[in-house]
């Protein structure tokens, strides 16, 4: 999906196509569909709607979140998400009580495994929600992380 849009962009401009073939990506072209609405949304529902057009997710045991029970420093909370699901299209990480809950969303290519680790900031103790989209359906899991010192604002 992503790639298709990207390729369309490069066809429009020969110079960019050259840059791409040289291994350099043009940020302006790539950023065209960064979902601004989703990242600026102030509720989990709005963030999901901005990303997937729907805020419905099905809680599933197949989605696993690995996160600390207590994060001493909210600025660096390691999160790992994996899923025992076939045809995973995307993995999204949300910190429920952050001012803007959506932290990161990953779109997986055909060869990528649904297993991603990253580090996020958390303003206060809250649930971390992982949403995994597989075969067109959204599955979710949540885990509470207690934050001793918040990592947003400061």
């Amino acid at each position, binding site marked *: 999906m992503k790639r298709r849009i990207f390729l369309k962009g490069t066809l429009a401009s020969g110079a960019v196509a050259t840059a791409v073939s040289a291994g*350099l990506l043009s940020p302006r072209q790539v950023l065209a569909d960064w979902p601004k609405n989703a990242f600026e949304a102030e509720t989990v529902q709005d963030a999901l709607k901005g990303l997937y057009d729907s805020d419905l997710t099905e809680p599933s045991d197949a989605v696993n979140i690995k996160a600390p029970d207590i994060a001493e420093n909210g600025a660096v909370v390691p999160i790992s998400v994996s899923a025992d699901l076939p045809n995973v299209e995307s993995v999204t990480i949300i910190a429920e009580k952050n001012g803007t809950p959506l932290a990161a969303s990953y779109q*997986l290519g055909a060869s990528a495994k649904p297993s991603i680790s990253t580090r996020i900031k958390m303003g206060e103790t809250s649930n971390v929600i992982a949403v995994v989209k597989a075969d067109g359906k959204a599955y979710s899991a949540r885990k509470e992380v207690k934050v001793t010192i918040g990592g*947003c604002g400061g």
Partner: protein
Amino acid sequence: MSKTIKIRAQQKGDTCHVKALIKHPMETGLRKDKKTGKKIPAHFIQEVNCAHEGENVLTGLWGGAVSTNPYLAFEFEGAKKGDKVTLSWADNKGESDSVETTIR
């Protein structure tokens, strides 16, 4: 060698494990400068792309809530030792960087 990206791609059996560390301030735009009281403008990576031999493997869309100096680890199949993996990022100020590494 890229100035901002440290990357390692390691083949273990059928799976290639990629770990990357990017040097970036990841300012949310909400933080205030303690001396002047003014807000520090937002400056964060919006998109990370990873490709294996030219084939897109993973696209990460990031907001300001990803930690300073972001870390990213993921796995993919269908690679072999010696293959090339490229990773690039682009931020909201139009800055970008990319790096190529060989799977070990």
